């Protein structure tokens, strides 16, 4: 997994609630057996018309936001499916941070497994960042994971919370599986005890 330490990039505004996983990556693109190449279909049905032409009004099609690395969105971002294709598509497009007032549980987990930082902030902070994000190519925001801060274009600073273990994994690009395999002895012991207590499992 790619590390996430600090990022200065353009923030794109998506002032919608309940942006679901079918919007982020429609199911016709889930047929891949790879993790890469999904960026071109990120937000596909909002981004292209029936003839596959770009819809000019969609935020990520606007010249100022084509290279956005941060998304600012409304409540309950990523609700719906467990498909990890959603963070894969965001990552492949170049999005490394999503800011919202709340996230759906599975999507939130999936982000951390892919080097994407989902940030939960109170409504007033999201509103402020949404305003900042409306400034087109001037919507440059710095997200620093070590200090847990977001610095807006005017120098205003917002602090955010993140789970210490997840922060550690992101900062160091750590592979969860490797970490858990270090606990093989505990897993072995659990299995021996469980086989006694619940042999039918």
């Amino acid at each position, binding site marked *: 997994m790619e590390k996430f330490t600090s990022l200065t990039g353009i923030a794109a505004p998506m*002032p*919608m*609630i*309940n942006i*679901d996983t*079918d*919007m982020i990556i*429609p*199911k*016709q693109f*889930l*047929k*891949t*057996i*790879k*993790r890469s190449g999904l960026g071109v279909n990120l937000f596909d*049905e909002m981004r292209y018309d*029936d003839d596959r032409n770009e819809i000019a009004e969609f935020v990520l099609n606007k010249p100022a936001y084509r290279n956005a690395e941060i998304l600012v969105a*409304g*409540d*309950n971002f990523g*609700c*719906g*499916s*467990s*498909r*990890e294709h959603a*963070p894969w598509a965001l990552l492949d497009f170049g999005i490394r941070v999503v800011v919202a007032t*709340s*996230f*759906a*549980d*599975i999507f939130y*987990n*999936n982000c951390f*497994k*892919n080097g994407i930082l989902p940030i939960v902030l109170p409504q007033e902070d999201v509103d402020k960042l949404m305003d900042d994000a409306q400034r087109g190519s001037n919507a440059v925001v710095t997200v620093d994971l070590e200090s847990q801060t977001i610095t807006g274009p005017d120098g205003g600073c917002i602090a955010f919370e993140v*789970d*210490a*273990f997840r922060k550690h994994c992101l900062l160091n690009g750590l592979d*969860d*599986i490797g970490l*858990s*395999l270090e*606990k*093989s002895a*505990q*897993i072995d012991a*659990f*299995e021996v005890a*469980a086989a006694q*207590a*619940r*042999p*039918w*499992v």
Partner: protein
Amino acid sequence: MTAAKTLYDKIWNAHLTDEAEDGTCLIYIDRHLVHEVTSPQAFEGLRMAGRTVRAPDKTIAVPDHNVPTTLDRVNGIDNVESRIQVEALDKNAKDFGIHYYPVSDVRQGIVHIVGPEQGWTLPGMTVVCGDSHTATHGAFGALAHGIGTSEVEHVLATQTLIQKKSKNMKVEITGKLRPGVTAKDITLTVIGKTGTAGGTGYVIEYCGEAIRNLSMEGRMTVCNMAIEGGARAGLIAPDETTYAYVKGRPHAPKGADWDKAMAWWETLFSDEDAHWDKVLTIAGEDIAPVVTWGTSPEDVLPITGTVPFPEDFAGGKVDAVRRSLDYMGLVPGTPLSQIAIDTVFIGSCTNGRIEDLRAAAEILKGKKIKDGLRAMVVPGSGLVRAQAEEEGLAEIFLDAGFEWRLAGCSMCLAMNPDQLSPGERCAATSNRNFEGRQGRGGRTHLLSPAMAAAAALTGHLTDVRDLN
């Protein structure tokens, strides 16, 4: 004296393998269900790292999302990408030695229907799958939730999951349901009240007389949509109904193991004075047959209602409703029972079980669907299909004008050829009404199997109670 515990606390504690100082835990996983869409990258990851599947005997795979449901599927899958995904699962199941129900097996079906049917899902277990509707298995008093592909790989490699404990939420449905009201109406009504983020951070336990009175099929419908309410999992404590369903299934415990299992299962309930972080109580008598009108599962109203006005809502929901109504092609103030439909879909992991088909068939018996309507029944598994044929239900559906399909996820998410066209309006027994869910531009109204059957007869959303 030990502190009072919820059912969730008890299952959690029984599977806690390691706990770090900051509360990050390793939870042991008893059953890992696998399907073709969210697993190929996980198996590829194992191969690249030279890892194996730690517990192949606890890993069960079945293709469901992509598979065609037409009878000609025995000749192979036309869509190249779908075929590659299914073939990848065939190969991964063989290479890693996990239990497998291929497309050709009569037991094949939707993973969340096959698991319980085969007795893989048992009370007190931890169950995961790379699919959000894994919540279904909570109906057995199993802690079951959806995971992403990275976590699928993690479970394959370690048989554990890194988790932090969720909070406890109790949803109590008191009293009795009125005629025409089903498990689907319960679960949609709850989401209508909590909103799609109301359960975020919680594991929900459903309880109360109305839940106790549900069959296992109904309980699975309720728990299935816990995820639409944002919850990590939904649970129902096991009881005689559960044990009666489980007993005798191919992978259920037998003999002395059964007795030992029962001794533990009977301890699986929330203690009287357990602590709840959130409680919602709904009187069963107050629940009506409901439908969704928008593009979020929280957009629920009784069938007797009217399409709402955006101004009736607050905050970001105002714009969301405006967008929804535009997408759905609906005018505020229109009675829901006047909304004409083009298609009826009965099936999915929410409502593709035998009881669902019985409920729909009862409405359809001896009648014909509205002229020009497209209607299909997609049984949740090959065994559900076989049983429905034996009971004469298939004949009722066919006589009424329904298509009678083979098992799969089908039009619930339209990854296979079963899709809506732009603007096509569908009464669906599935679980999501998101934009484009059933096909680009398709419009979905979620409802119960009986309500779907009623809509099929009249050609518009219909109060099933008005049919008699």
